[in-house]
């Protein structure tokens, strides 16, 4: 796969951070259509960027054979975004507490913590075929 593919409410990208801006642009368009306000759009965009970065770097380990998929769904007043990779699984126990004094100056390890703070609901589903993290936010 050489470039992003958009199919309705879903975008699939190669495992390369070069395509983060494509995901952001797609997401912003979808959220504007749903009339999500600016501040919540930014919170969702930050969260999705965290999840896509994790999916590319930690899930797929930047493998050119693997892709990351972002799918948006909604119901009145709520949007859900699912970010899927094709890696070998994920557990939050692997992550140090980023606000502990001894970790405060670490350069990495805040992604999921930030997502949990900004979103209403975070669901992680991991298997040998990959990880899907779904986030929901009311608007």
């Amino acid at each position, binding site marked *: 796969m050489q470039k992003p593919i958009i199919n309705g409410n879903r975008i699939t990208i190669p495992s*390369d*951070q*070069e395509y*983060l*801006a494509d995901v*952001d642009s797609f997401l912003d368009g979808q959220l504007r259509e749903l009339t999500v306000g600016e*501040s919540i759009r*930014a919170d969702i*965009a*930050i969260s999705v*960027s*965290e999840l896509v*970065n994790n999916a590319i770097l930690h899930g797929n380990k930047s493998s050119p054979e693997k892709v990351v998929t972002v799918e948006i769904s909604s119901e009145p007043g709520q949007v859900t975004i699912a970010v899927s990779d094709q890696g070998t699984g994920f557990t939050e126990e692997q992550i140090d507490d*980023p*606000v502990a004094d001894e970790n*405060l*100056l*670490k*350069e*990495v*390890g*805040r*992604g999921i*913590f*930030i997502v949990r*703070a*900004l979103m209403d609901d975070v669901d992680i589903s991991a298997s040998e075929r990959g990880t899907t993290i779904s986030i929901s936010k009311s608007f």
Partner: protein
Amino acid sequence: MKLSDREQDGVVILEPKGKIMGGPDASLLHDKLYEYIEHDKKQVIVDLSQVDWMNSTGLGILISGYTTLKNSGGELKLANVTDKIQSLLTITKLVTVFDAYDSIEDAIQSFR
């Protein structure tokens, strides 16, 4: 993200613009910051007034610059932090790490 940089009264001012989300764009900020550090510029202000938002990648770059400068006797300070970024700094407790000022002038004065 776009990035401009300048020096005022001997202080380096970096002015990122847009969204700092990772990948090639974020590398711009990291590389420019370290270019100045390698040239022994030890007083740096990052003006965040035109940054829509940043994620943990952006925070990591700021921390990296902060730590590197502090270890060499310098300082990295923030100016014009937007509400959205202030919220992230609070959530992550990094508000306790960075000195932040309401204007570039105030940040420059703090180095005096």
